[in-house]
């Protein structure tokens, strides 16, 4: 398929790795988080900051467990990344802001073809 952007050999892209590629003129961050591959625009919807300089982590979630009880907080398995400029935080899978899903930045499919990681425009 035309337009796929090669990232590099999959065996050189282990968990924890990240890199930047250019997709249709836009800078896109590609991540391997615990073996899953994600690609997200490197431009925060807030002030255009470099989202992909952030550190991927599980989104923090809270659960109300009853009156008078401390809200139970934990890091979920949903992968998220926060822009280092002001902390706007996005779901790596959807590009949606964790606090307001009406705010979103582009995400891209990532495929491995013949041992090479590619981003689909």
């Amino acid at each position: 398929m035309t337009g796929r952007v090669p990232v590099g050999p999959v065996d050189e892209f282990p968990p924890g790795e990240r890199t930047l590629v250019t997709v249709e003129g836009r800078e896109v961050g590609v991540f391997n988080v615990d073996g899953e591959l994600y690609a997200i625009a490197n431009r925060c919807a807030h002030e255009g900051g470099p989202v992909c300089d952030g550190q991927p982590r599980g989104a923090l979630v809270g659960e109300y467990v009853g009156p008078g009880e401390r809200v139970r907080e934990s890091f979920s398995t949903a992968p998220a990344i926060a822009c280092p400029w002001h902390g706007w935080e996005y779901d790596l899978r959807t590009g949606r802001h964790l606090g307001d899903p009406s705010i979103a930045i582009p995400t891209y499919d990532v495929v491995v073809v013949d041992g090479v990681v590619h981003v689909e425009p």
Partner: protein
Amino acid sequence: MLDRVVDPAEGIYTMVPAPYRDPEASVELIDRVGDEQGVVGVVFVTPGAEPPLGNRRYDVIYETAEAAGLPVVFHGGGASIDYFHLRGYEKFIETHTLGFMLNNAAQLTSLVVQGVPEKFPDLEVVFQESGVFWIATMMHRLDAEYLKRQSEAPLLRHRPSHYLRGFHYGTQPMEQPEDPAHLAALFDMIGGADRLLYASDYPHWDYDPPSVITKQPFLSDAEQAEILGGNAEAVFGI
């Protein structure tokens, strides 16, 4: 109060004053008188609440009010005779400009960030006696903070202004800009006329007559009727 003052036939209602420093006593009081004729809400006086009123220790009060179908009303306070944050002011106008608003803002911030509207989704929330312009400040300020640090308010499913547009607000003492268009923009910002409950505070020195509403050129007759009575009838079930 119930024997000699409250009289729904004459249009006189009251609220349970929650002694919230003792949450269990507050629950007992709501259980004891919350279903009496003419009791239509639970009121919290907002100065002096430590910890602030979003703290989980007050959950039982909100749970009880929600179950009883009683709105919770947060009533500002904080003029010169009260404990106040900013000591050293020399004129009453200085403390009165800020006190009521800051105390309500402090409690509203706590309520929203701690997720009270998500814990108790059927609880009606009203803030009163700090005017209307602060509401827009809180909406936009909370939204700006939340979008940068939403993990600190993990119970919220929407940005804070969404919840603020679900609350109701007493209008008094209503700010009246020289250009009514500015007030119209404010009303629009906070969710429209159905958020607002006319309050007089009569006979205090800064009371508002109904004309603060009826003279606004941008409000339709229907909107004026909502603010002057219809909204309160719906919120308080009267």
